[in-house]
């Protein structure tokens, strides 16, 4: 989730997107009740946007947001009758699994760039895959699907809000805070990305359980589970 993801987020923020959910055009099986879904630890980076423009990373916000979204994902999956297994990509030991996870990051970035913004003439359907490496994850963890959650953004401080007014008066545009979340569902036995959703948090504050709950409703809406 590097500079690239910011660009893609920026594209989303700027409203250049069409629909926010994308579903694979290939038919797939919904996971049956009792099958296991791997909930990847949400990768959330949040900062306080101060008046001077410096973003101050906030550990507590990141921890809460990650925890809240994780809990929401768990609740949602369980409501669909699935077994849930949590997985921390940073702790993955197996070389192949590490490569698959890195590939997923590249695939997600590509989806955000091309499925959501600049379409590729070579890709007219929503058909993205991690390849057969995902099977190794399925086998090791005994899971059918994997859910990846990525979020980033900032929350303005009061000082920042003042600065925006001042700058606007001076004719300089300064961005305010905003947070976006991207979620993708991967069918591990084929490696196919079955479904993605890109959401602007808006008024829903993922740092708080209630906010995360409301955000989760938009996030997991239409998830084919």
């Amino acid at each position, binding site marked *: 989730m590097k500079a690239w993801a910011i660009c893609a987020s920026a594209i989303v923020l*700027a409203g250049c997107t069409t629909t926010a959910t994308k579903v694979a055009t290939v038919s797939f099986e919904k996971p049956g009740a009792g099958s296991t879904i791997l909930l990847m630890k949400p990768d959330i980076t949040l900062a306080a946007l101060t008046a001077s423009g410096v973003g101050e990373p906030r550990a507590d916000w990141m921890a809460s947001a990650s925890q809240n979204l994780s809990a929401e994902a768990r609740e949602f999956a369980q409501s669909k009758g699935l077994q849930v297994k949590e997985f921390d990509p940073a702790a993955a030991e197996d070389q192949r699994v590490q490569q698959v996870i890195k*590939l997923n990051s590249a695939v997600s970035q590509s989806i955000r760039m091309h499925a959501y913004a600049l379409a590729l003439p070579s890709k007219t359907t929503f058909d993205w895959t991690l390849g057969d490496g995902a099977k190794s994850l399925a086998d090791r963890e005994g899971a059918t699907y994997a859910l990846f959650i990525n979020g980033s953004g900032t929350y303005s401080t009061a000082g920042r809000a003042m600065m925006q007014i001042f700058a606007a008066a001076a004719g300089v545009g300064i961005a305010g805070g905003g947070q976006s979340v991207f979620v993708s569902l991967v069918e591990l036995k084929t490696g196919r990305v079955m479904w993605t959703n890109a959401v602007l948090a808006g008024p829903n504050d993922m740092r708080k359980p209630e906010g995360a709950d409301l955000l989760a409703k938009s996030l997991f809406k239409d998830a084919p589970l």
Partner: protein
Amino acid sequence: MNKFVPALRAGLLLACLSVLSACVSITAAKGTVPLAAGGYSIALEQTWSDVTALYGAQTPKARVLTLDGVLLDRLYLIGGVGPGASIVRSPLKERPSPVMRADLSLTEQVEFLTDSISALGYKRVESTGVRPQTFGGADGVRVDYRAQTAEGLEIGGTALLAVRAGKLNAMVFLAPQEYYYPQNIEKIEAVFRSATFGK
């Protein structure tokens, strides 16, 4: 830290918007695809995306094609790199890119290409399997590559290069080893075979 610097992000947002609003278009590439005037052309059996408008600034003498996005597969079609020119543009005089010379030995030609791939930003680039192969009827060199992205994603690559009338031409394919390189290598062999020098 760049995630936390909204000022940078604002700049990036503006940049992204200007790129988008300038109607940067990704065009389709299929069938016979000519390179620059006097250069070579290739034949593509399926539709590729020509993303040169989006990503080409780094490699002014190349067309950049992709199927799934440049993070997942990319084909550089490089042509007409004469003495004194580089494949990769370096923004800084004090950090120069590798430069083509008139009298490079074959080993040095391969080295020039390998170093240029490093200059694109790939890490731990290694060339293997250096062997002769024709490039549009001209005698060329085929090289395979191993590399990594900065994050450690393993990359596979293969290239065909030939110097013709003192200028270097090269076709370079790079993709993650995980799925994307093996998935597309056959197509690339066909593309390499299809190259023809015009006039």
